[in-house]
């Protein structure tokens, strides 16, 4: 086979690889992220990744079209570096590196820390199984959740029912807009509600006290909701009040709940400790991981509103610079190839 024929065959195989991977990516999108991740790390896909790697390498070396255009060469080299860097950064390759003594420490893991605690122990996602120690320790100096200010009254009066959800039973609440003296229809059990009084509105950390009259036909009952310091949710079940009422859902209730303001940021202030000495102090936030000792450490989650502890996620940084170099080459190569050196026909016709 002469070189020309080899180059054409290489291009055909590359096309098969490109369109094949596109088809597999579409199929993977139907699997959901978790199953797709497993699939794209399977032995079959590993073989396909190597095939693409080989095609890219062969293109860089043998394709005259690629070699004579530096921007095209940079794009192909960029793809190759991204693929190689990602493979080098994968957990499977990390395992091999560790088994051959080329690397040490866990690939990734989670760390739960309370303020003042120091740890080097990484656990799995459930935080129940120890996966290995970091080569340094992290002390959590402080953890806080920053919120956006609430622009409306945080206390919401509503009518709600519970329905099954992925996280168990969840409330579906319809807000009730009702001023003192007004009567509104509740969406359940043919019941009306008259607001008798609502006081006080401030301070917002303590709930208002709402006195109401619930009416069904000739029956009427007076009830009060709210007023307990520290409570953020009040429920008044309707079916016990009107046992003869027809309720499609027995959980139908009048509810008073406090809205949580939207989260602006999660901030963990940490100190990195090496040999019992503080070597680095900074805040880890979403989008601002800490990089130290071959690991990137991320703000992962926390225990919700109580802010008792933070959960950090640590992952090895091997191969990252390779992939990043690939990003730069691919991005610059594409810009130069198509924007700065586009091939235009001289006569405006087909090139």
């Amino acid at each position, binding site marked *: 086979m002469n070189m020309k024929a080899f180059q*054409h065959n290489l*291009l*055909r195989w*590359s*096309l098969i690889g*490109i*369109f094949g*991977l*596109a*088809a597999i*990516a*579409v199929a*993977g*999108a*139907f699997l*959901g*992220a*978790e199953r*797709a*991740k497993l699939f*794209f790390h399977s032995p079959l896909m590993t073989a396909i990744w190597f095939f693409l790697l080989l095609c890219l390498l062969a293109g860089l070396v043998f394709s005259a*079209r690629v070699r004579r255009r530096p921007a095209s060469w940079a794009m192909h080299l960029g793809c190759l570096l991204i693929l190689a860097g*990602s493979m080098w950064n994968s957990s499977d390759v990390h395992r091999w590196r560790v088994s051959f003594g080329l690397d040490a420490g866990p690939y*990734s893991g989670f760390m739960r820390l309370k303020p003042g605690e120091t740890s080097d122990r990484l656990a799995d996602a459930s935080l129940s199984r120890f996966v290995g120690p970091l080569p340094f320790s992290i002390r959590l100096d402080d953890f806080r959740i920053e919120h*956006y200010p609430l622009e409306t009254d945080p206390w919401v009066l509503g009518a709600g029912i519970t329905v099954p959800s992925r996280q168990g039973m969840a409330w579906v609440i319809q807000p009730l807009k009702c001023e003192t003296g007004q009567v509104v229809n509740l969406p359940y059990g043919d019941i009306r509600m008259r607001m008798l009084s609502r006081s006080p509105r401030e301070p917002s950390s303590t709930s208002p006290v709402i006195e109401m009259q619930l009416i069904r036909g000739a029956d009427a009952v007076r009830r009060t909701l709210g007023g307990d310091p520290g409570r953020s949710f009040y429920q008044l079940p309707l079916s016990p009040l009107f046992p003869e009422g027809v309720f499609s859902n027995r959980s139908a209730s009048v509810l008073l709940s406090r809205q949580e303001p*939207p*989260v*602006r*940021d*999660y901030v963990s202030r940490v100190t990195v400790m090496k040999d019992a000495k503080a070597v680095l102090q900074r805040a880890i*936030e*979403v*989008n*601002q*991981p800490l990089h130290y000792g071959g690991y*990137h450490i*991320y703000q992962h989650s926390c225990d919700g509103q109580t802010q008792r502890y933070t959960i950090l*996620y640590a*992952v090895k940084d091997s191969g*990252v610079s390779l*992939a*990043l170099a690939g*990003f730069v080459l*691919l*991005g610059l190569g*594409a*810009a130069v*190839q*198509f*924007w700065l050196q*586009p091939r*235009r*026909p001289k006569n*405006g*016709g*087909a*090139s």
Partner: protein
Amino acid sequence: MTLQATTLGWLIYLGMAFYLLAFVLFKAHRPKAGTWTYAAGFIAAWAAVGFRGWHAGHPPLQNMFEVFLILGALFFPLSVFCRRVLNIGGEWIDPLLGFVVLWPAGFVFDPQLKPLPPALQSPLFVPHVMAYMLSYIFMAKAAVQAAARLAGGPAAEPGFPDRDEAIYRLIGVGFPFMTLGLLLGAWWGKLAWGDYWNWDPKELWSLAAWLVYAGYFHFRALPNGRTYGRAGAVLALVGFTGVVLTLLWVNLAGRFSGLHSYAMP
């Protein structure tokens, strides 16, 4: 379908009305009036974008409503760029595309303002989304040319290169934007979630679309590849189908929930 009887809503409807009128004027062979009306639609659409951004306190690119609003506002300058710089015709249909893109912002998606979640507070937010938006418009225009090519219309509009060349030029400009969007998104994923690639459905659709366009260029490099214009046009349409699915279906269908679910309407 919900009518938005707000200042923002009326600005969107004004933009849509100008776009529709511009399309009619172009079809009625009144190009000058069409261009001026198209420009008026552009001003109205950007007024809507500015109004939204002022109220939101951040560039309005957070959810589907804002993304479609921006898309609708980007058409006019890119139409002018395509005609003047790329020497590509088909400007007359662009106002109709702008109208179609503004429709979901005007009638379908929820315009309720929501604060930016922590993951979106990144300097990569605007360049990542804008790179994709720009690429989507070029790819949409390429798909229109491809559809005309496959529908058997005239091979070229008078004074402009043939449709195969137009498709190539449009994808040639859009592809680097798409590449930048993909790379910036991957880098952002590394900073926010700890990995460049999380196998999220939206990521996979965007990869599939990018690969189809990469395949388009490789296909043209085949011996006699440029002579198979119909196949190139089919690829342009398949790639744009991937773009639409990346943008729309993945966000709308619960089946594809994933890390990008915050963009849901």
